[in-house]
Structure formats: structure tokens, C-alpha cells
């Protein structure tokens, strides 16, 4: 009745104000000592998992290919230390998928692979090939292979590059450190991506709780009228892809479509920087900056870690645990995954390890009283309480009316719920139920 008259807008009052807790913002990245051993999972991206291209006993060097796949939506994986392959194993990743792993015993030399040379790029095809070889995936968290993203099916339709420097998750400062420490790479990376996407307009969105970064890049890009550095209000989830696209360009990514259908390509700021680093040096993505924080960590800081380093070793480098952690997270507190122990390895799209103690509040679900706070908080204009209700009734017909598949799992509904219902989790389950039938 009234639904059809409404225009398709984002919920302008949606989202939540979470304490930023960016304690490590001014902590300059430190490089971790070479770990004795790395365990590199061969599934670190969305798409086809890689299979091992090395055998037990092989000697490998930093940047050498160890895993690849024939799939188009996939990204190769490289050795992050030099040393000997001691095991090809299998592990269950925190998200529940299992994959092959390559264990490398480090020789402590970090000798670069001979094949690591700057790629020759003369045209767009060379560029895409180079990006694929770099193993780069979306470093904001989703891990979508970058060479696929930069190769939209209809290049003429793309008229904007959006660079995501929002970093709206609490605690995490790794993108901010990238902007401050590697601003030249970010700068050149943006210009390179614009060149090969054949766009003359780019918007660089940064939350206004990072004024230094906004000032820095506004100055750097002042001679490039096509690049607009946009200060975004600091609230969660400003950096969610669909939200960012709407806030910067006013465009709506329709259900079942990708940002490229709305004429935009969105790249995380660290991805842009790493891309340029690869073009300059030819060293693939073998290390990652990680924010280590949380009340259970003795010395919170930003650490540059070889991919595959055990999380426990990273925390050990940060002084170890101050108190026994009650929750260990891979990623931020709003969307991160809780780990059952600290033996998991760091992967490409990891940007934080949080060991929480006093922040953890265990809550019990109570009955929904229909207060509507979840509806007001949902940036996507969904009605989490109704999805929750119909999911528990297994009522697929009514579930479909409330479009659970549009949920981006930002967690705002669960965050605000006074009845402490696990709405985000239920909506994830509802997505599965709807797609089954």
C-alpha cells in the first residue's frame, strides 16, 4: 500500500554510535621478528580455493608461488618466509570451511624469490595479469580477488572509483596506519587504478575521526580535481560497501547486483596501496599489518606480520596476554569472528586480532518486546524483528517479504537490542532458509 510510494533510500538514521576505541591510532607499525614457522591456508579469498604447488621438502623463498587455482574468481598464494616446506596439511578455518595448508619452517633469512621483479605493464591486460599474480584480495575483510574486481564486465559503465578509508569498526587502525605511513603508495595506487579502470573520477571516503588523514590526502590530491577526498561522519557501518557507495555517489546497489552494476568499483585503501607496492617491487602480498588490541593484550600495537603466522605468536610479540582473554577475535568487534583458540594463522584479509576481557558481556536472549530499535538501527531499512519472528516460525513465505538476503550482517540490530537477541545471526540463518526453498 504505502511501500510502493517510497523511494529507495538508505535508512539515514541507521547505524549505531559505537565507542571508536582507536587506541592504536598513533602507534607506528612495527615489523614482527621472523616466526619459526608459518602455516599458510590455501583459502584466503572468496572464490575457488587454491591447491598446493609445492611438495614437502621443497625449499621456498619469500614471494614464491605455493598455491594457485584454475578458477577465475581466485587469487594465488605465496610463501611469506624463506625455508623448507615441512607439511601439506588441512585445517578448518574459523568460519567453518576447511582447506589445504602449507607449513613452512623458516630458515630465518627472509630471502626474496628470484622471480620477484617489478611486472612489465604496457596495457590493461598486462595490468590485470599483474594484479592476479600479486595475490591481492580485498583487504577490508571480504577478501574478494582484486583482479576480478578491476575487470568489470562492462568497463564503459564504470565512472567512479571509490576508495574506502572509512575504517568504521572499533579498535582497528591498520588502514589508518597504511594511509599515514604509506601515503605515496595510496596516492599512486589510486591514480593507477583510475587509469586502468578508465575513470576520471574517484572519491576517497575517510571517516572524520581521522582528520590527519583527510588533511594529508586533501593536500596530496589538490592538483587532481578528479579525486575528491570526502570526510564521512564517523559512525558504524560507514565503511560497508553499499552504505559507502550511497553516501559518496547517491547510487543504490540493487538486490542481487554488484557495485559495478551501479557504475562504481570500491577498493579498500590498503588494497590500493598494496597494489601499487606490487607494481613497484613485484613482491606479492605476503605480509599484512594487523591491529592487536583489546583489554587482555599487554602492549596493543600495529604489527606487520608474515601471512601464516600463528595468532598466538603475534600476541606473544605484543607482550602476551595481560589477563586470560575471554574472547579472541579475528577482525573487529562488530563483524569479526570469535576464535576457539590462538593457533589459527593470520590470513590476507585479516586486519585485527582482538583479545577481549573486560569488554565481554555475556547476555541471554529474552523475548522481543517489539521496541523497534533494530528497525531504526538497520542501515538497509530491514525489519530484523520480523525476520527473527518468521525465521523461528520457519515461515519462508513471510520471511521473503522482509528480504533477509539484503542484510550485510553489520551487527547494528544485535548491538542495539535491549532483549539481547542474536538478530544478526538469525538473519544469516534466515538467508539460508530462504535460499533453500
Amino acid at each position, binding site marked *: *500500500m*504505502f*511501500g*510502493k510510494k*517510497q523511494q*529507495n*533510500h*538508505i*535508512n539515514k538514521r541507521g547505524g549505531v554510535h*559505537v565507542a571508536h576505541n582507536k587506541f592504536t591510532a598513533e602507534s607506528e607499525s612495527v615489523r614482527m621478528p621472523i616466526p619459526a614457522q608459518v602455516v599458510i591456508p590455501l583459502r584466503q579469498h572468496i572464490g575457488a580455493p587454491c591447491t598446493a604447488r609445492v611438495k614437502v621438502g621443497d625449499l621456498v623463498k619469500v614471494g614464491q608461488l605455493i598455491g594457485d587455482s584454475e578458477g577465475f574468481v581466485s587469487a594465488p598464494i605465496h610463501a611469506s618466509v624463506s625455508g623448507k616446506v615441512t607439511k601439506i596439511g588441512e585445517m578448518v578455518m574459523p568460519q567453518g570451511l576447511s582447506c589445504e595448508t602449507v607449513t613452512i619452517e623458516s630458515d630465518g633469512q627472509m630471502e626474496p624469490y628470484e622471480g620477484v621483479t617489478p611486472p612489465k605493464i604496457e596495457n590493461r591486460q598486462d595490468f590485470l595479469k599483474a594484479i592476479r599474480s600479486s595475490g591481492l584480495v580485498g583487504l577490508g575483510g571480504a577478501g574478494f580477488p582484486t583482479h576480478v574486481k578491476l575487470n568489470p564486465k562492462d568497463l564503459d559503465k564504470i565512472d567512479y572509483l571509490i576508495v574506502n578509508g572509512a575504517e568504521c569498526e*572499533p579498535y582497528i587502525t591498520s588502514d589508518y596506519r597504511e594511509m599515514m605511513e604509506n601515503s605515496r603508495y595510496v596516492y599512486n595506487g589510486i591514480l593507477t587504478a583510475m587509469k586502468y579502470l578508465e575513470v576520471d573520477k574517484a572519491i576517497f571516503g575517510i571517516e572524520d575521526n581521522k582528520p590527519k588523514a583527510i588533511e594529508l590526502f586533501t593536500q596530496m590530491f589538490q592538483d587532481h580535481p578528479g579525486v575528491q577526498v570526502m570526510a564521512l561522519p564517523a559512525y558504524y557501518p560507514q565503511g560497508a560497501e*553499499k552504505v559507502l557507495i*550511497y553516501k559518496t555517489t547517491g547510487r*543504490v*546497489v540493487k*538486490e542481487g547486483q554488484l557495485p559495478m552494476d551501479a557504475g562504481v568499483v570500491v577498493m579498500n585503501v590498503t588494497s590500493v596501496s598494496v597494489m601499487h607496492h606490487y607494481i613497484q617491487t613485484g613482491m606479492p602480498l605476503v605480509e599484512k599489518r594487523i591491529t592487536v588490541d583489546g583489554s587482555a593484550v599487554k602492549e596493543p600495537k600495529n604489527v606487520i606480520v608474515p601471512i601464516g603466522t600463528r595468532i598466538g605468536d603475534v600476541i606473544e610479540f605484543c607482550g602476551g*596476554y595481560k589477563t*586470560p*582473554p*575471554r*574472547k579472541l577475535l579475528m577482525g573487529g568487534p*562488530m*563483524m*569479526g*569472528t*570469535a*576464535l*576457539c*583458540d590462538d593457533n589459527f594463522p593470520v590470513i590476507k584479509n585479516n586486519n585485527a586480532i582482538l583479545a*577481549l576481557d573486560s*569488554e*565481554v*558481556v555475556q547476555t541471554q536472549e*529474552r*523475548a*522481543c*518486546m*517489539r521496541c*523497534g530499535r533494530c*528497525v531504526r538501527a538497520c*542501515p538497509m*531499512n*530491514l*525489519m530484523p524483528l520480523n525476520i527473527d519472528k518468521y525465521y523461528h516460525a520457519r515461515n519462508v513465505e513471510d520471511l521473503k*517479504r*522482509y*528480504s533477509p538476503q539484503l542484510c550485510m*550482517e553489520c*551487527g*547494528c540490530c*544485535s*548491538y*542495539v*537490542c535491549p*532483549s*539481547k537477541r*542474536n538478530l*544478526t*545471526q538469525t538473519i*544469516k540463518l534466515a538467508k539460508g532458509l530462504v535460499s533453500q526453498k
Partner: protein
Amino acid sequence: MEKKLIVTPSPHLKAPKTTSQVMLDVIIALMPAVIAAGIIFGLRALVLIAVCAMSCVVFEYLFCVLLKKPNTTSDLSAVVTGVILGLNLPVTLPIWMAVIGAFIAIVVVKNLFGGLGQNFANPALVGRIVLMVSFAGQMTRWAEPFYYKASEVVTTATPLAVVSAGEGTLPSYLDMFLGVRAGSLGETCVLALLIGFVWLVARRIISPITPIAFVGTVFVCSWLLGLDPLMSIMSGGLLLGAIFMATDYATTPIMPAGKLMFGIGAGLLTVLIRNFAGYPEGVSFGILLMNILTPYFDRWTTKKAFGGGEK
């Protein structure tokens, strides 16, 4: 890592506000009206309200025990229902009748329909309506304000009954505002109810849309009918209903547009019943009928999901 880690789905942070805190805020907002009732109608008013609140909690507890469900009394919603029910009763009502009202509210209306959030009608409101229909005499026996200072109970007519009957004298605006008039315990003191309203809105417990639309509609319609609009909105249970019952989460719409429709609809019904039906007061029935329409309001006002297709 001697202690085991907690693994839960994201998000791992939760806003501090809980159900019981929300309910506590409503109880705090009701306190000015309770205090006013104590001043205007004496100790017995407070006893009646306390009996209602306690019986509601006891009934909810017993219901949970009998049905082997987790005890939900700590969410304080039963206390809210009890206090609102108490504020809807005349001071002279026998205690046992108040207990029956609490039983209807908590057991029949709330818990038999599934408990907090599941009931389709406001429990306190239906409790009051059932009492009104069952014990019409006792439910309309209105004592004079400050009757307890006199040697015997003097009963009188409420301002709405005065208007309805067309005889008797109406209190002054100031008396109406301060609550020095006959009526249900909590409905008389406009000042106390407004303090509660400001508290609820300031604490972001309720949206002001429904109360403003409700009261505004009654004001405008009464004025169009040639009545004194100011007197109309201050008399009867309008403010008590609009502020505390038309804003009940479970039984009113979620979306702002739905809240607006609810308020206007309840306002229209109130004016219709007050002026053209047998009862002098129409707030209860106005809200109750809108409670029944709430699922439709919710359905009509569901916003299109961002990026979603046609519905």
C-alpha cells in the same frame, strides 16, 4: 590460555541498555502520577496501585512456574502493567476487584498470548475494560479529591460525565492541570503525566509521535464539535492513555507513519465514543481498537529495503 574462550556470533559488543532498564524507565516515568494519586486520593490510592503491581508480578511468576517456563518477572514488564492498571482504577474500588483486573491483564491478555511482546492488546487496558464491564457500578464510583480529609466519602461526577450529562460544575483549568478533580487514580494530574512524558521522550523510550497525534486529534475534533478543546484533552484518561498505553511497544506500530495513523485513529474513536456513544469516556476503546489494527499499520508502513525490489 587456561580458561576456555567464549565463541559467539558477531557482533561482540552490545549496547548496555536492557529490557529491564527500559521497563525501569517507564516505572520512573509513572512515579509522578503515582505520587499525585497519593496526594489527591490518599493512602488508599497507593495501596491499590501496590496491590495491582504485586498481583501482576505474582500472577506472572505463578504462570511461569505452572507452565515450566523461565521466570520472566525480572524484566519488570509485569510491574509496569500493574502500575498502569492501578492508575486506571477509582480509589474506592474493592481490593479483590483490582486483583481480578491484574489476573485478566497478566494471565489472560499477556501470557496466554505468549508473554511479553506477543500480546495483541494492552494488558492493563483490557484489565480495566473487563472490570468496567463487569463491575460498572464500582468502576464509576468517583470520590471527591481529598475526600480522605472529610469525615465520610463523598462521591461526585467526573468532568466528562458532567459534560455528558450537561449538568453540574466543571473544575477550573488550574484544578484540571493539577489533577484536583474526580477520576481514575492516575488520570487526573496533567502535570504529573506530562513530567512522565518528558522523561520517556528524553530517555528515548518512546517516540512522541503517537501521544501528540492522539491528543492533537482529540483537541482538533473536540474544537470542531464546538466543545472546549483544552478541557477535552485534560479530562478523562486521555493523557494517561496517550502517553503510557498508546506507546506500549507490543501493541502499537513500529514505524513512525504507523504510529501517526495509530494516534489519529485512536483520537477519532475517542471523540466519537465520548460524544456519540453510551460511555462518557472512549480512550480505552479507542486504543483497544487501534491495538487490533496494529499488524495492518505495520504491514502498510513497512519500508522498502535499501536496494530491494518491488514488493
